[in-house]
């Protein structure tokens, strides 16, 4: 290994040393002057495969590996540049249209200049990260040229020159150098000058373009460039309208509709001294004009009412709010307000005469005020607040459909650009104004858009079209929409990941020779009578069980988990991919795997009749279900049979079956019941959510029927032993790694969460809900029964579940031991260990357990607290998204199953508003809103008794609806005229005890 040295001869004034001086201000407001050296060099390659002189000087890394040249020798040409061209975008081009650069149809051979990269990083870190990702992908051929370090292209800022002008000049200088360098390279190689690719600067800055023309540099605006491409129309829509639009509106000097945000320093000072509060903005699912922000200072969330107070915050943004004076405090609305129905006929193009509050909205508000005023003083107004600034936008890409009414008929067929509204799938997101040339084509399709900006003078945010997913209501489009909406990574595994799989593929077997390194420290458990019990058709079998009596009267019970950590080594591409995916996502007709199929459904899966690697937890348990001892070991097993829950149940119940396997299952069943009883005694909750199963036709997988899930004893058998395994493993890894164990906790819900439910129960049924501990809650939930209505208890459990906190993964060093508690399971410590094929947390737990039993050293990535915290954060989000995506998928299929059918079903009233109520139909697990105006035409008059949760109507239809009431509803599906969206629609048949 040799080291190079810079020549001593170089004087400070020598051309190849420069310095960069800049001033920066720190977070605390201090101003620092930074001086940095710059070593200018002449060996930074142009990275074009046409050039041989650069190749000779190309850098090598410490391993002596040469970085391959990326820019193609025959780059694609366009109409304007038939000889082929390299692109050099400036910062604005990337800021406005990074989506374009990610396209696969164009934008190859792009040179990213250091100047641009640096500036982009200053302006937007997410965009910077996306760009860096692009430069690493091989097929896109993006090259980062460090122009500021190359002698010929480095530019020193002139006196009086603005930093932007300097950067633009640097870009032009680099473009110029590139073109002359390429010309020389081609000539040196003996090529004809026709073959020299053009180097084209992309910029939206007119001044920059003008100067480029003066210097004789090929340059054009993004728009002009895209116009010259083949699929120009599609691509043009992706150029952010933000900039263009702003200029347009500036000319008009439109009035501002929203208040200006506070300056960053004002917000920070305010938050620090407690006059302002920061939190995540959440929109109520029933009323798009009502949001809430939970701030650390108060127990209860602050309400934010009305568009003006919401002040351009979008669901999920981190906002800074100011509490409003007490006379503006209000009760949360009891009314359902939907954007669709309020502002149906807005014109997306109309700029003038736009008010923040439309006439209809204003009227709705008046009624609201009247109601509050007429109420006795008992009404408890809640503190309200208004948004004064955004700490962090949480905008993502949104899926939705174009509001057909916003598209003008005349231009439907033409290519003229027009502004349309996009109605997002997520009701909590406001309409997005999108300028597009393809309005005619994308009507009736699911489309993906991003929000670019939301200025003070625009009522709705402005975004741009990204791509179309396909026709509304087609299975492909709706599934992809779901996946995008819940941010599920559904693309096929990249090659780098697949390269990590065992070379043998499906032919991989447990090595026959025990001398093989795979057998090291593995116990041979192939002689045990092991079986697995899973849902029907399960392919990724994570767990298997065995039980056998011991001579001393106790039992030996083993839980065997797929040894995924044997195949997925830390920090390879597959591990990284899995940690990003976090979990397997189950949709009704589709499974998005966390690990490649080969592992998930074959090599790791504990399939019957074949030998597989496993990680086993083995206990000695007394007949009273006390654990005598436990141990963990890597093992090799051979499952005897893979049962479905039903098959297992039948086998256990059938007295004629007396084989060892069945006996073992009976033992397990007996023990599991005792374990369950113990857990219940300790205060574990049995919660509920409406669960349904979709029956599909086997050929077309079209949904034909909806069934509620049946509960079998074998399910709780498996569940109990999985809980046992998880708890024991949690204790073990916590003991071994007190700072970095991967655990799962479920926080005790704050009492205020249950206030409303407790009050409802008290008023309606005279029942008391005690919430001081999980045991109390479990007992009082057991007492919530209606002798006439068996479902009532389940209904209350469903409601109680919604008051709970969600369980989360965490790293043990970040919490105190008492905080480890799992409230729902009433367990002191808990983790996930039993499903490593489909959850990343389990894989981490496996690695930690393997290290805890000295099987292998612990990898650095699961030893560092910071890293683990990041992993936890990601998998918590992924886990939640996966659940929601699964639920949304079921919802969609229920809708499809009901398509064209009309069914009368019983339902229960879950929530009552002053102008409608929500009904849950347990048979289908769906809930829907019935508005007063759906009851009869004309809309009946109503009186709402909020204290007793009763809604009485008079006039065109007389009835009274109260909370928890059982009602008969007619379920049908309608296609909404305006939106072309299919919706499940409930009609009230009768309110009485039908």
């Amino acid at each position, binding site marked *: *290994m*040799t*080291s*190079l*040295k*810079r020549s*001593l001869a*170089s004087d400070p004034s020598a051309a190849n*040393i420069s310095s960069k001086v*800049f001033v920066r201000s720190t977070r605390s407001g*201090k101003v*620092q*002057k*930074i*001086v*940095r*050296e*710059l*070593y*200018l*060099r002449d060996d*930074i390659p142009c990275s074009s495969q046409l050039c041989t002189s650069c190749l000779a000087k190309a*850098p*090598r*890394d*410490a*391993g002596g590996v040469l*970085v391959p040249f990326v820019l193609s020798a025959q780059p694609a040409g366009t109409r304007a540049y038939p000889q082929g061209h390299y692109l050099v975008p400036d910062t604005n081009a990337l800021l406005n249209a990074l989506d374009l650069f990610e396209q696969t149809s164009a934008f190859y051979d792009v040179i990213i200049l*250091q100047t641009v*990269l*640096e500036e982009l*990083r*200053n302006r937007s870190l997410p965009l910077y990260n996306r760009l*860096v990702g692009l*430069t690493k992908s091989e097929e896109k051929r993006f090259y*980062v*040229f*460090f122009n*500021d*370090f190359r002698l010929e292209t480095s530019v020193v800022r002139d006196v009086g020159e603005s930093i932007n002008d300097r950067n633009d000049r640097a870009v032009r200088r680099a473009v110029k150098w590139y073109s002359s360098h390429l010309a020389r390279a081609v000539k040196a190689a003996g090529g004809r000058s026709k073959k020299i690719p053009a180097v084209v600067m992309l910029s939206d800055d007119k001044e920059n373009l003008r100067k480029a023309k003066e210097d004789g540099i090929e340059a054009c605006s993004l728009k002009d460039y895209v116009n010259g491409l083949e699929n120009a129309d599609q691509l043009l829509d992706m150029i952010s309208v933000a900039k263009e639009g702003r200029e347009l509106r500036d000319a008009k000097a439109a009035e501002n509709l929203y208040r200006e945000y506070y300056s960053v320093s004002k917000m920070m000072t305010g938050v620090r001294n407690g006059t302002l509060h920061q939190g995540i903005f959440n929109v109520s699912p029933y009323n798009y004009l009502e949001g809430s922000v939970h701030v650390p200072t108060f127990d209860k969330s602050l309400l934010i009412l009305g568009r003006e107070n919401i002040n351009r915050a979008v669901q999920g943004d981190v906002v800074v709010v100011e509490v409003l004076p007490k006379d503006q405090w209000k009760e949360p609305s009891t009314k359902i307000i939907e954007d669709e129905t309020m502002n149906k006929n807005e014109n997306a193009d109309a700029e003038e005469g736009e008010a923040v509050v439309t006439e209809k909205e204003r009227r709705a508000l008046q009624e609201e005020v009247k109601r509050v005023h007429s109420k006795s003083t008992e009404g408890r107004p809640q503190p309200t607040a208004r948004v004064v600034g955004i700490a962090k936008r949480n905008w993502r890409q949104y899926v939705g459909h174009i509001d057909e009414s916003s598209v003008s008929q005349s231009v439907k067929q033409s290519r003229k650009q027009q502004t349309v509204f996009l109605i997002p799938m997520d009701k909590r997101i406001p309409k997005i104004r999108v300028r597009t040339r393809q309005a005619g084509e994308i009507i009736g399709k699911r489309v993906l858009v991003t929000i670019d900006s939301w200025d003070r003078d625009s009522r709705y945010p402005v975004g741009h079209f990204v791509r179309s997913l396909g026709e509304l209501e087609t299975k492909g489009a709706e599934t992809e929409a779901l996946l995008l909406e819940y941010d599920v990574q559904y693309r096929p595994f990249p090659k780098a990941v697949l390269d990590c799989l065992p070379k043998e593929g499906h032919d991989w077997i447990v090595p026959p020779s025990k001398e093989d390194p795979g057998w090291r420290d593995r116990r041979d458990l192939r002689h045990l009578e092991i079986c697995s019990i899973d849902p029907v058709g399960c392919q990724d079998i994570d767990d298997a069980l065995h039980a056998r009596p011991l001579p001393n009267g106790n039992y030996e019970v083993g839980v065997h988990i797929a040894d995924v950590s044997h195949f997925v080594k*830390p*920090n390879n591409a597959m591990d990284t991919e899995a940690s990003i995916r976090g979990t397997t996502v189950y949709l009704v007709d589709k499974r998005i795997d966390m690990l490649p199929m080969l592992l998930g459904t074959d090599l790791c899966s504990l399939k019957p009749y074949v030998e597989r690697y496993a990680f086993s937890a083995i206990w000695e348990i007394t007949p009273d279900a006390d654990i005598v001892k436990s141990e963990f070991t890597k093992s090799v097993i051979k499952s005897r049979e893979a049962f479905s829950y039903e098959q297992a149940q039948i086998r256990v119940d059938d007295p004629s079956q007396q084989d060892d396997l069945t006996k073992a299952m009976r033992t397990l069943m007996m023990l599991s019941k005792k374990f369950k009883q113990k857990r219940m005694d300790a205060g574990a909750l049995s919660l509920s959510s409406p669960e349904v199963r979709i029956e599909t036709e086997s050929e077309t997988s079209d949904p034909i029927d909806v069934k509620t899930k049946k509960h079998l004893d074998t399910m709780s058998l498996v569940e109990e032993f999985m809980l046992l395994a998880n708890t024991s493993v949690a204790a073990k890894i916590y003991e071994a790694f007190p700072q970095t164990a991967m655990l799962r906790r479920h926080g005790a819900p704050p009492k205020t969460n249950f206030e409303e439910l407790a009050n409802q129960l008290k008023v309606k049924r005279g029942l008391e809900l005690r919430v001081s501990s999980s045991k109390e809650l479990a007992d009082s939930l057991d007492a919530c029964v209606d002798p006439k209505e068996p479902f009532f208890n389940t209904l209350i459990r469903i409601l109680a579940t919604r008051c709970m906190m969600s369980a989360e993964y965490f790293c043990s060093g970040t919490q105190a031991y008492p905080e480890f508690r799992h409230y729902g399971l009433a367990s002191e410590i808990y983790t996930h260990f039993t499903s490593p094929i489909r959850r990343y947390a389990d894989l981490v737990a496996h690695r930690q357990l393997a290290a805890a039993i000295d099987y292998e050293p612990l*990898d*650095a*990535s699961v030893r*560092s607290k*910071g*890293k683990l915290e990041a992993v936890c954060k990601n998998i918590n989000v992924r886990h939640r998204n996966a659940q929601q995506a699964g639920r949304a998928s079921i919802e969609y299929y229920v809708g499809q199953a009901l398509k064209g059918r009309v069914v009368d079903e019983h339902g229960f009233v879950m929530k009552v508003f002053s102008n409608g109520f929500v009904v849950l139909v347990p048979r289908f697990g769906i809930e829907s809103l019935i508005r007063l105006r759906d009851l009869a035409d004309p809309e009946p008059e109503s009186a709402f008794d909020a204290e007793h949760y009763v809604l009485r109507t008079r006039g065109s239809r007389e009835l009274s609806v109260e909370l928890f009431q059982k009602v008969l509803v007619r379920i049908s599906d309608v296609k909404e005229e305006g939106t072309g969206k299919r919706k499940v629609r409930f009609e009230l048949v009768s309110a009485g005890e039908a």
Partner: protein
Amino acid sequence: MPLDTSSYSLALLRLDGRRWNELRLLRAQISTQASADGSSYLEMGNTKVICTVSGPTEPKGTGGARAGGDNAEVKVEISIAGFSGVDRKRRGKNDKRISEMATTIANAFTNSLFTHLYPHSTITLSLHVLSQDGSLLAALINASTLALADAGIPMRDYICSCTAGSTSSYSSNDESADPLLDLNSTEELELPFLTVATLGASDEVSVLVMETRVQVGRLEGMLAVAVDGCKQVRDLLDGVVRTRGKKILEGTTKL
């Protein structure tokens, strides 16, 4: 916010335009201060230090017999100027980091100087940091070597020092982490690094200090690069001494 060290992988260029195995510009002079027994000024990039040597002298004050005994004692005083860093900050004499550096330097030179030639005496190195931009300990050691040579104190060989780091931080598991030579302050803030000093051109390591966490697998590469860097530094220091010597012989400079 300029780019950070993660951009190295994009084009194998560091934040200041160097490659992985390149030293910063190292410049030095000796006999910068006529009144001292030996003195030097040394720059490694933007890290600038001066060193003066006084001694060997009889220890001050009483108790002459107490000091040193059979060997000369090496004393090191370091003062860091308030203006040397980005923020103006005064650092007291009792700063832990400073006294640790002083001890490290004193130990290294006690072993390489022929201290037995000067019983009952003290050699005092006083080091002043004028500007800091990474590799401070290395610069101090190099400046001390030069000043001691200038003072004419016999030594086994130059002690030459430089730092080495790794392009990827401890917890990020970048398989292809490159070792880096001679870190500047931005790199020192973000990356694991160590300071190595060797005795002349040999592979004999006399100082090895590392305060950051690094994965064991990367250590060997870092050490190899650092030791190699030390050899480069040795040639540079030797050049400085020889130029000065030549001038004296030519008579263009007075001793």
